[in-house]
């Protein structure tokens, strides 16, 4: 019996020793004459090894045109390449498949020079036809690509015209600021593989997870090797990748990247701590202390990248509602519409406590829609009023509110001020924020109830039924450029949360905001544009459609094995330079 136990333990040890495994990834192809390689400025590394990444959810598709969920985009991003890429660290654009580009003087056309000698991961040569085909697909209404909206400028989609085999011109109906940024993450598709399914009208069903690896090709540093449903997806080196290091070695260094689908953040952390994965991408701040404690024993490094682009906020239901149907809300809306009321609330909220208790101190309080994480666009002049209950009370008093003998706040009709805050129950931090806010506002005599709801129930109330008083949500994380958030701030935007059905600006300041945003959109010079956007930020901060709360820091980690690790506060936080990552030792990058 005992012998058996020992034996089985030994056997377990034996099989867990996967270090001895040598991967079957293809060797990088020799660099050919005339191949216009991009040279990476990163430290020169060594070939080999597998990077293991834990993903909270399974990717849903490999189709770059239809993918909307984070995990899918994280995987697709490694398999595909774009024309112009945003460097996640500098937040500036840099050449990718396009070796250079030029904006015409009228700002309406954008000419792109493509890299020479580039091949897809199946060895098929890449040309301007692929680019034109890709944009045809993205812009086709029947394909329903979410990217189409980004590529639509001034209500008209941009058009791609082939000039020669390595030149493409994009035409826009109006000048567009930061035009090159829209090309980031727009993956160029292999026309030779996808033309048929596109013409048959079955493009959405192409490139699913069940697609055979040899029928899928991209221009990214890696290509599909294996997908095990519910378990993992393995990418292997693209031997034809168009980047090389300073010593002329073709990238990427890694043989393989394995994405393990672990289900949730807890599992992600467990796997990372137990050494089963090599990097951890963005974990929530409350996990930081426990992770940091184990840093030394387990051989990994955690990196706090500072504030993210995510801004969390409280907003009130300012929709025009039929009063007979929403009696309760209609009674409350006069308060919500009163700026002094919103200002009082903003003053009463203890943002430092939110940062401390919801983010374990790893975050920053915010008073505007651009976080300190967005180095290029933040308006540093915005005032940061300190929390003050007396000031808040003064504001309320001036707005006609009063208090009864028990300290309850009464409105003009001497009815108690009572409302609910909904938030998504799956986000513990936001539930915590809402609960803290409720406690803060109790000091003003308001009786505030927190109702955590399932995510889609929250969405339904905010977007469809408008049946809510106030809500805590968070946005951001995609692009640092102001254009990414246009739909939130434009009065006719589709994510204009506080008042969904506006067709024209409901208030003068919203009209002003619309005008400012439209102006920055066509302003091509950064400094001018920044000045306009600063003004917009101030306008938002002064009128408080959202009461901004806090922004969490981006926290990531990697085992000490992983080199060239340069995480960034923009998605995908750690894998954006996967082509440059390498492992200091052979084998699977795990902590020992």
């Amino acid at each position, binding site marked *: 019996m005992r012998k058996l136990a020992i034996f089985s333990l030994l056997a377990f040890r034996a099989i867990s020793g996967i270090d001895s495994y040598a991967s079957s990834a293809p060797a990088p192809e020799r660099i050919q004459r005339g191949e216009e390689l991009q040279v990476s400025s990163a430290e020169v590394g060594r070939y080999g090894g597998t990077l293991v990444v834990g993903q909270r959810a399974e990717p849903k598709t490999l189709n770059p045109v239809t993918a909307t969920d984070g995990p899918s985009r994280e995987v697709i991003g490694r398999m595909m390449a774009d024309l112009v890429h945003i460097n996640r660290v500098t937040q500036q654009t840099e050449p990718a498949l396009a070796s250079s580009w030029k904006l015409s003087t009228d700002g309406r056309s954008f000419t792109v020079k493509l890299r020479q000698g580039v091949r897809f991961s199946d060895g098929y040569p890449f040309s301007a036809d692929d680019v034109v085909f890709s944009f045809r697909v993205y812009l086709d209404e029947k394909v329903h690509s979410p990217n189409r909206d980004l590529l639509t400028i001034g209500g008209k989609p941009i058009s791609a015209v082939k000039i020669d085999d390595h030149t493409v011109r994009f035409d826009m109906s109006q000048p567009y600021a930061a035009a090159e940024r829209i090309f980031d993450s727009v993956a160029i598709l292999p026309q030779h593989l996808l033309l048929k399914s596109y013409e048959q009208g079955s493009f959405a069903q192409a490139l699913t997870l069940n697609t055979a690896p040899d029928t899928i090709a991209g221009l990214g540093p890696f290509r599909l090797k294996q997908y095990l449903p519910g378990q993992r997806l393995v990418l292997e080196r693209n031997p034809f990748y168009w980047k090389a290091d300073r010593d002329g070695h073709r990238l990427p260094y890694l043989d393989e990247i394995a994405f393990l689908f672990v289900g949730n953040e*807890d*599992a992600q*952390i*467990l796997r990372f701590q137990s050494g089963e994965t090599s990097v951890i991408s963005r974990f929530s701040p*409350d*996990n*930081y*202390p*426990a992770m*940091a*404690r184990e840093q030394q024993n387990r051989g990994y490094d955690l990196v706090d990248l500072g504030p993210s682009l995510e801004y969390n906020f409280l907003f009130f239901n300012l929709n025009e509602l039929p009063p007979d149907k929403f009696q*309760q809300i209609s009674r409350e809306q006069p308060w919500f519409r009163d700026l002094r009321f919103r200002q009082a609330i903003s003053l009463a909220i*203890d943002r430092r*406590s939110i940062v*401390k*208790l919801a983010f*374990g101190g790893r975050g920053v309080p915010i008073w505007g829609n651009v976080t300190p994480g967005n180095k290029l666009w933040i308006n540093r002049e915005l005032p940061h009023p300190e929390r003050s209950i007396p000031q808040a009370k003064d504001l309320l008093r001036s707005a006609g509110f009063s208090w009864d003998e028990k300290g309850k706040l009464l409105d003009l009709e001497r009815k108690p001020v*009572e409302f*609910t805050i*909904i938030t998504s*129950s*799956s986000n*513990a931090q936001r*539930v*915590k924020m*809402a*609960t*803290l806010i*409720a*406690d803060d506002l109790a000091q003003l005599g308001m009786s505030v*109830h*927190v*109702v*955590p*709801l*399932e995510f889609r*129930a929250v969405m*339904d109330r905010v977007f469809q039924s408008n*049946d*809510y*008083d106030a809500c805590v949500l968070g946005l951001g994380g995609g692009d640092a450029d102001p254009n990414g958030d246009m739909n939130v701030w434009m009065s006719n935007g589709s994510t204009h949360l506080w008042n969904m059905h506006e067709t024209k600006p409901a208030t003068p300041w919203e009209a002003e905001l619309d005008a400012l945003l439209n102006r920055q959109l066509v302003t091509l010079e950064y400094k001018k544009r920044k000045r306009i956007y600063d003004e917009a930020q101030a306008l938002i901060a002064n009128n408080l459609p959202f009461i901004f709360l806090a922004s969490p820091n981006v926290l990531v980690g990697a085992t000490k094995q992983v080199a060239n690790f340069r995480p960034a506060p923009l998605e995908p936080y750690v894998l954006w330079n996967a082509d440059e990552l390498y492992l200091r030792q052979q084998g699977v990058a795990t902590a020992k």
Partner: protein
Amino acid sequence: MLMHRKIFAIAMAFAAVHCGILFAGFFAPYMPSAQHREHAYARPTKLHFVDAQGQVHIRPFVYPSVPVEGEGFQYREDPSSGYPIRFLSRKSDGIHLLAVDSQADLFLFGTDGYGRDIFSRLLFGGRISLLAAMVATLLSLLIGVAAGGIAGHFGGAVDAVIMRSSELVLALPWIYLLLAIRGSLPLHVEPTRTLILLSAVIGAMGWARPARLIRGVVLSARERPFVSAARGFGASEWYLLRRHVLPQTLGVITAQAVTLIPQFVAAEATLSFLGLGIGEPVPSWGNMLSAFQQFQTVSSYWWMAAPLVALVAVSLTYFVLADALHQAGARINSGQSYA
């Protein structure tokens, strides 16, 4: 005699737990929703008997705790001044069994992420959770007994319909219905109404399994000769069911009851997620448990497991009590087995 003493002891433990929960306001040192933001995730406060000078005090005292700079939430005791525990002290919100001066804190089971006293929340939360669980258990058993009893006793088409519907109930994705219920409610629901609602929802969902078990017992019970004897002197079917058949299911019912109560307390955590549970900041064991379900909480703040320990302990007393009662009852009803 020995048996009686055992039952007595268990019943006393049972009473003690429920007394503490019932008079939470007296036993709890703090209000359950009072946030001590400077003391989030504080460890259970140490009670001291010996001060820095080595002097022994009969009345326990505590040292104030001071946040320590560094990662996460760490505190150290400040031994410069001790504060004795006051018994039966009067505060603005009534008399409390235990209290300390406001310069120090008395967190017997530590605090949660908002700096709320877990011990107080446990007592207040137990009130609502146990009540909801018990009412829900009662309800689901009531429906279960009725459905199972009728199905087993009358058989035939009634049986088929009831049993098929129980299979239906077991198979349906209830989450959607719960979401729909949540959608049709006003956003803010008072805890008392939530309680009723919770019990109703859980009860309505939980009847299928007890019903199937009870049906099994009834099937064999109704075949017993004394049932047909009673039928022979003109008893109605309802009388038979009530007087002879259902009493035989008591064993199954008690066994089910004690398994369902802890399950239902835990189920509230799931319902909280759907927005149907007891909302913050009102405590319940269910919403306290859901905080504990995060891995880091488990590994870093072990005292957050208090609701789990309490739940297991309370269920254990239920189990043991039910077992003891059952054994006592088994003498009268010898020869009957139960599940």
